[in-house]
């Protein structure tokens, strides 16, 4: 299998010398095509920081990140936005749908701004909306949608460009268990049917149990890794046990 993300010796420190916070301390991580990775860890452990580095929203202090063989810490802004546009999809904790357009237009946004053929965009929007169970909500504005629908909308928007890799920061953080399950199933199907690679940050053991691997982050370093087995509930139990042993418990 192809290595799609390669993180080497990634360090991120915030602040100046005296008030330094080491948010990430020498992280090494390889992500392969079609992986579904969950990153867990207590609050302040550096999860969002790691994701921000990966999604190029922030620059690391040290180390390198290779996405599809390109070191994103070294390329210029133009190439960077090209890479983000073509290969990466983002799902945020707080939906981040634009309130001034319909759900349909929100989902179509990345493609429509990219000069893709309009017929193709329309077809793709319909298809991906169906995948996320949003078909009947397409004409609504975000304020007319529930939290779960918004999150699925944001996910649909992230996936419409067929990104090679999807970064998701606590996508289920604001959802109830039913909406969480809907979203996770959609992600799972994107992973299985569309061969998308997913890196998801989560607090929640149930969400993490949808992944194929779970990494534990603590004080800016990876401290443990679990691989999924055949059965999700068994994986869920193992995750809970690991969390308990780390003394943080599940939330």
């Amino acid at each position, binding site marked *: 299998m192809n290595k799609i993300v390669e993180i080497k010796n990634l360090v991120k420190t915030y602040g100046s010398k005296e008030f330094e916070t080491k948010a990430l301390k020498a992280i090494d991580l390889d992500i392969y095509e079609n992986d579904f990775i969950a990153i867990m860890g207590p609050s302040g452990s550096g999860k969002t920081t790691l994701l921000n580095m990966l999604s190029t929203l922030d620059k690391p202090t040290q180390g390198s990140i290779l996405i599809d063989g390109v070191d994103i810490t070294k390329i210029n802004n133009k190439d960077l936005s090209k890479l*983000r546009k073509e290969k*990466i999809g983002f799902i945020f904790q707080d939906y981040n749908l*634009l309130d*001034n357009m*319909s759900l349909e237009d929100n989902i179509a*946004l990345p493609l*429509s*701004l990219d000069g893709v053929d309009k*017929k193709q965009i329309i077809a793709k929007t319909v298809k991906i909306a169906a995948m996320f169970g949003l078909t009947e909500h397409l004409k609504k*504005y975000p304020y007319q949608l529930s939290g779960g629908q918004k999150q699925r909308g944001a996910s649909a928007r992230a996936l419409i460009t067929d990104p090679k890799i999807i970064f998701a920061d606590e996508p289920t953080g604001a959802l109830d268990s039913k909406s969480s399950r809907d979203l996770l199933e959609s992600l799972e199907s994107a992973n299985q049917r569309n061969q998308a690679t997913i890196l998801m940050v989560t607090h929640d053991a149930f969400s993490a149990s949808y992944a194929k691997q779970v990494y534990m982050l603590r004080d800016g370093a990876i401290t443990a890794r679990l691989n999924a087995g055949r059965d999700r509930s068994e994986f869920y139990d193992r995750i809970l046990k690991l969390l308990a042993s780390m003394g943080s418990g599940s939330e």
Partner: protein
Amino acid sequence: MSLFPLSFSNFKRSLKNYVSLIASLSFTIFILFNFQNIVFSDALDQLRYMQKSYINIVVQSVSVVLIFFMFFFVWYATNVFLNQRKKEIGIYTFMGLDNSKIGRMYLLESLFTGLFALMIGLFTGIIFSKLFMMILLAISDIRANISFQISLNPILITAAVFLAIYLLMMLKGYLNIVRSSVLDMLSASRKNELRKECGWVTAFKVVIGLVILLSGYFVALRTGSLSSMGYALLATVLVIIGVYLLYDGFIPFILQKLTANKAFLYQKQRNLWVNNLAFRMKKNYRTYAIVTILLTSSVTVLATSLAMKNRYDGVANFRETYTYQVMSFSKMDQAELTRRVEKDNKIKYQSSMMISVLKSNRVDTQFSESGYSIISYSQIKAAAKAANQTFDYPKLEENEVIELDHQYIMSFASDFTGTQKMKMDGQTYEITAVSKTPYLGSLQENMETYIVSDETYQRLKPTMQTLYLENIRIKNPQNFAASKDDLDPLMTAELDPENSQSIQYVAVDPSNPDISWIRIMYSITVFLFLVFLFASVSVIFMKLYNDAFDDKERYTILKKIGIPKKTLRQSIAKEIRFAYFCPFVLMVISSYFSVHALANVMKTNLIQINIYSTLAIGIICFIFYHISVNSFIKNIA
């Protein structure tokens, strides 16, 4: 907790956010001050003593217009910023401040802002006052020495008027804050953005708006002479309502249709900016409508004063042709007159004429005048050549005449149309043309004269009294008074038809003080036009500036999901282009019709107003568009 330091530090910290408020307040202060400064300076004194009443009326009405303008502009600016501030201020409620405290804080912050703006406005106003006055006088074509002197009065009046208006608005904002809930404050800037209305209400607005606007244009086209002045009024009302409904109905409707048409929407950056426009239209349509109407009206006012000035120039032209016109009922010694004038002046050109005067009972025309006179074709042709006037009428037939008319300042009588006849001594003549070229100089203003063929003239001359005319134009007409004492001794007490030796003359002052107020009015209207132009455009600017704050979040999201900055910039530019150029285009169309109607009423060609105002407004819009795009991008960065 003491409010003063908190408010002051707030003010300092958010000075950047206040920039556009302070800029717009300072602008109105600048304008008002400069106008007051003109009123109190001695530049207009020399004119004022000549035509005190007219100039005072003009100056006073403009002051009233400017104060009204200041009132609404300050109202608008403070309102826009109150909404923005409310959101910010609302957060203080969570810090445990109650509404009345927050209100007082708002009062203090506004006071700092207002005083700061007043300082800037007066300071820049004083610095630019001389330049400003020079420009105004140059447009008015008035020669006056302006000294750089600042008196206290304009400063005090400007400050008083501004503070009165501003304090009133502050109070309004204070009451608004005290009476609103936290939730209101936090969501203040989001209100009205989404307002769905039933389909048939929209359809009604679309249809009615278009019908009203188009019929307004149609009525404007039908406006012809003074008798159709009612039409002009009707057209104005229809166009204003039509424009308003267009922004409330037709344009949002089109935008909605565009956002629904995905094949259109999913191209270029349209998904972003067309959606944004459609989303905002419900909130912003009043601004667009007001700006469009304001621009159209200021173009129309400008056109009115140009029409007046055209007439003024026409009248002035009559006074420019000849400096001295000497009349007698017997032939005069031209050489003697020339010699006397040349003592103090150089002669540019001169001519001699014979005019035959009829008693009015021998003439029969549409209108009745006290005296009529005739002059031969070849005499006029020769004099016109000497005076360098065009005279390209074909030789007249026996029964043809050309009427010599003059320019009126205040008359809307319709011009010569089609063939008309006149009767002299029972014989009918055809009036082939009416000329407003001052072939007879200023005398043409007081005499009803017809040019007849040489043969007709020779035939009628023996039956009439002949008035001999010596016309002299000196090189420098301003110096007309110098030769008076040389000419006066030749003159008799009055021009008496019974006494063929009687001789009289007129010496023409080219500056014509009677109507020079029109020039001032003209330049003041140009000035007002520029003020309203800037005001309208800055209203759009403020609106956009305010919108940029709302959009901050949206653009953060867009950046986060990986939309390249370039795409965002292009989308912003397109959205802002619409905000400036939609009112612009509507203004160009509407003002075409209004100026056309005005030109019909005033019997003059005003198409240049359409061209120049379009250019001027286009350029200003273009400049502001660029500033807006830059500040918008800066604000969302």
